[in-house]
């Protein structure tokens, strides 16, 4: 999928926003990648995708001994939904 096209079709404004791919079952079997490139400028970037498990318990919200919510706060993320954000396949 070309995200720029989807953003344009959705009529979203601004130059950044959120992506969510949600599945009601077997979500851990899914993996996603998101990358950018501009061959004219010689530019490329790999955009991180994170797993979110809405059933994760509080004690599972750790990332290198630090609460994942804290990591999100340091990274400027603000999401008030319940659940856990983990780095790619942190829980595998």
């Amino acid at each position: 999928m070309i995200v720029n096209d989807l953003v344009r079709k959705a009529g979203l404004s601004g130059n950044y926003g959120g992506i969510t791919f949600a599945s009601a079952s077997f979500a851990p079997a899914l993996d996603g990648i998101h990358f950018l490139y501009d061959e004219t400028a010689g530019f490329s970037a790999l955009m991180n995708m994170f797993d979110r498990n809405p059933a994760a318990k509080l004690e599972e919200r750790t990332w290198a001994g630090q609460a994942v919510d804290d990591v999100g706060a340091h990274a400027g993320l603000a999401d008030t939904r319940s659940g856990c954000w983990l780095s790619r396949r942190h829980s595998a």
Partner: protein
Amino acid sequence: MIRATHQQKYSGSHTEPALERSPSMLNCRYVLPFLLTVVLAHAAQPTPKPQESFAPYWTAEAGWDTELQMRNNLAAGALTVTPVLRLSDGKEIPLDPITISSRGAASILVSEALVKRAPGLLNQPGSFGSVAFRHTALHARNLAAVAAVHMHGQPIGYHFDAYPVSRDQTGGSLEGIWWQRNPGVKDILVISNSSDKTISGDLHLSDASGN
């Protein structure tokens, strides 16, 4: 009986039962538990099982190539790995198995492997998908694997790590951020399914305000 025997021993009696001092009986007391421990420990040892790791993307479309990089994490023992390319429709193309010595690494150039296995896919639109790395080991993480995708003649490339396939049936989501740096930047999102089941999902895009 044991207490009586000890009392006899400490009192210096010479009437201890002959059985208590028998070397064969002593052997039985110490050797049998030892043998039992050895047998149980051997029975509890895990045996290697088929394992599968999964990298979400490879491509051999025009202008692109992919290198499959694998490392054997075992301190001792070789791993034989079969990389399997999956197309976006789920069709599998097994590549030649490769044996990697302990702590060794190996690399496969997908374009060269496809020349042998499916030359019609080279440089074609739609020649992309996910990669499964199959091997037999105690744990899937005995193998570290990566699909390294790069654009020909450009400083543009990406590493996509492989992870053990999950059979977990729970719901959840993948989350990310879209970013339009400037109009010339191409922006690709790929969602891959590592299971043998059809999984449905919903894609939501939002602006910076969450709308």
